[in-house]
């Protein structure tokens, strides 16, 4: 059984929200997801700390599938989210 966390997801789009604070991080992520089709994957680059804690939870709460959060080691994280309609 392959570990799903290690599966090489290929993002359909990338967005960077490291230039804004919460809740605008989430707003920008939602807007970026809105441009995608159901099932497509968005990569979101966000800052460590509040954004990395809040955005995955908020997107999950919206019904999207949070796939992976990776620490980039430079004060930012990369979040992979699959768009799900609800």
């Amino acid at each position, binding site marked *: 059984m392959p570990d799903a966390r290690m599966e090489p997801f290929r993002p359909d789009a990338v967005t960077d929200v490291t230039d*804004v604070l919460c*809740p*605008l991080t*989430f*707003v*920008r992520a*939602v*807007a970026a997801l*809105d*441009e995608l089709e159901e099932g497509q994957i968005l990569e979101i680059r966000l800052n460590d700390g509040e954004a990395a804690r809040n955005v995955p939870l*908020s997107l999950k*709460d*919206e019904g999207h599938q949070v796939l992976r959060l990776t620490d980039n080691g430079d004060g930012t994280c990369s979040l992979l989210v699959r768009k799900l309609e609800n």
Partner: protein
Amino acid sequence: MSFSGEQLARYSRHIILKGFGLRGQKRLSRGSVLIVGAGGLGSPAALYLAAAGVGRIGIIDADEVDLSNLQRQIIHGTADLGKPKADSARASMLAVNPEIEVRAIRAFADAGNIMELIRDYDFIIDGTDNFPAKFLINDACVLAGKAFSHAGILRFNGQLLTYVPGEGPCYRCLFKNPPPPEAVPTCRQAGVIGALAGVVGSLQAMEAVKYLAGTGGLLTGRLLTYDALKTSFRGIDLPRRADCPVCGEHPSITAPVDYTPAACDFR
């Protein structure tokens, strides 16, 4: 449609709201509202709808800003005295949100122009201060199949009701005809607390927002009354009347009617 980074920031508190979200904001942006009257009720309604990003707003008023208006008509300022209210309102709305389209209409709504006025709007707000105008707006909206918010304020009391085609009663189901002119105190005669207009006009804006966004329930089939002295709200369930002369099964009113407004003694 997609929003710019600035628009996302401007509307962020709508977009993060669960049950409203980006979808609700897009609907507001695509929506349109006509506000009849840039007075006590129209002021907060127009400002909130402009701030909310309703894409297209019409505001109609034939009067000019008078010093006695400023105690409650917060869309106008002292520097606007003597200016047409529709223009003054438009300027305030665009100052809050320059990204929307506002049409200022310097006219009285009457039987001759009301159908044309409401035609291009999704939702109508009755912010007028007299019974003939309220019946006119009701009849026109029923005939045109438009949703609208009725409201009235006097002294310390307010009431409102939302009409949606096919749902609940219309204003004429509640009150068959306007009262005789001599029985009606106008706002000028009776007085009104400014903040009361703010409360009730804001409720009207809320109804318009929900209608456009398709969120929540509307004040249909129920008259909401507000007693400011007691700080008490009451909802009165009211049925639609099958024999209503305009929305009933056999309507006798098939075109808008002009009634004579009560004379304004204090003018």
